[in-house]
């Protein structure tokens, strides 16, 4: 469960990025957040990953109340949330297998556990056989699939995808959407921000619109601009 209650984020110079934003997301939901550039979508996701701290309001994920979250607990929070970025954020000096394994290494999984788990996840995202490829040798779509594999390898309850198709052509963008839908079917809550009108309209999922930091519409089976 994700709960945002009248959340506001104001930056220096009195610039309000998020303004009294309230949202409630049930477990297993697939929610698409749309809005024009600068509307506050990325800031919203940064608040959820605690890259930014809200100025006021309440954020609760599962049983974690962000107001009570201490700095040293932030890494533990991030281990429970999988995040996929538009620019992939892969480690360029590690191959596909190592990039995914890295998420398990930092929490102390043994090499045996890693060798068992990573191939399964790479199969889910369709990268079997490309384990040894370096990120530079992959297409944009493949890189994004590596990023998704890394985000889900610890089986998080929530997956946040910040414009994951922003740098991809339509074919690869749809590949990514199919993978996100599959992950959602496995029981993971997915929060997706996108500009891609076609994707929003075809997915027929809950659509939340944000404009100037405010929630302007929230429709169960919405489409772009409806």
């Amino acid at each position, binding site marked *: 469960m994700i709960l945002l209650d009248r959340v506001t984020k104001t930056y220096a110079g009195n610039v309000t990025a998020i303004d009294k934003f309230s949202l409630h997301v049930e477990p297993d939901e697939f929610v698409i957040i749309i809005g024009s550039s600068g509307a506050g979508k990325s800031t919203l996701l940064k608040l959820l*990953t*605690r*890259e930014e701290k809200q100025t006021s309001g309440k954020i609760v994920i599962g049983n974690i109340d962000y107001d009570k979250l201490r*700095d*040293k607990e*932030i*890494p*533990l*929070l*991030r*281990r429970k949330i999988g*995040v996929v*970025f538009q620019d992939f*954020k*892969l*480690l*360029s*000096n590690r191959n596909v297998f190592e990039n995914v394994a*890295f*998420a398990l*290494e*930092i*929490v*102390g*999984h*043994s090499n045996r556990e890693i060798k068992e788990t990573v191939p399964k996840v790479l199969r889910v995202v369709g990268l079997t056989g490309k384990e040894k490829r370096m990120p530079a040798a992959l297409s944009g779509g493949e890189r994004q699939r590596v990023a998704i594999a*890394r*985000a889900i390898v610890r089986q998080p309850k929530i997956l946040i995808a910040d414009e994951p198709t922003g740098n991809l052509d339509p074919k690869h963008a749809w590949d990514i959407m199919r993978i996100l839908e599959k992950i959602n079917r496995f029981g993971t809550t997915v929060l997706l921000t996108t500009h891609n009108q076609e994707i929003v309209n075809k997915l027929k999922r809950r659509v939340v619109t944000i404009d100037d930091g405010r929630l302007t519409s929230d429709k169960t089976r919405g489409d772009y601009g409806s």
Partner: protein
Amino acid sequence: MKKDRNIKRRLITIYRLTLTGAVNVFRNAWLSLAAMAVMFVALSILLFSVALNITTSNAITGLSRNLKVSIYLQDDVSDDNRFSIESALASSEYVAELEYVSKDEARQRFTESFRDDEALLEGLFLVGSDSLPASYEVSATSLEDFDKVEEIALRTEFEESIESITLGRTDARKTIEQAASVQQYITAGSVFAVIIFTVISVLIIFNTIRIAIFTRSEEIKNMKLIGATPWYIRGPFLVEASIYGIIAGVLAVTAVYAIVYSVGPTLATQEEFRQSYEFITETSTMIMATAATIASGILVGALSSMLAMSKHLRLKHW
């Protein structure tokens, strides 16, 4: 069960951090080499100056002990007066050893010392075999204490009983004083050199780690976003700098002991240096010296690394 799993995961994490740190040493090979070289010089000077100080201190103490104040007594000194001089000397904290040399013993020693010099022995026979005075041979606890011993003998109450006082062989005393003064200069110079090279080491390691942080800034950012703890990020930098300290420490110990073993046996033929050489080459001393040098290296490396991280690794704001 869960506790065991946590311990196992922590051990795996420590192993991975150590491995990553070791790999990082080779990633910045030239900078690593520079950092280790300067730290090697600093640690070598430190260890060598400690060895030198032990040797010179022992030698100076040994030589000082051999130097004696001779207090010559009047021929007609009464036993009471002699005993009061003896008791004043024996109760002094500045006196290390005290020996009474009677007129007979003085003559025997003289004869023994100059047995090949017939003219001198003949001279002694002519002036009378009891012409040599009885004396107290006193060694002081340290070189500076000879004057205090002399002050005791110069007390007015002993004026009638004492014929003369000889403060050791003046040239020997001067030489020892000069040696002590040189030792002080060596100590001061060593401390200064160790400080200078330690500061240079800190600066070079600081810079090496700073560059490593900048080179890996993107990686560090990604690590933070996927849930790495601050210590998981800091760990490899700390290990890397500590490895510099370990390698430099091992090399410094090897170099200094190579010098000790090449020069030591020759010096050890002289009594003043033998004790120091034996002490420095004792297994327990060697283990202590190795441990202390490596520990100093790790300390300098780790502190420099922490300094660089506190300034350039932004982990406070997550």
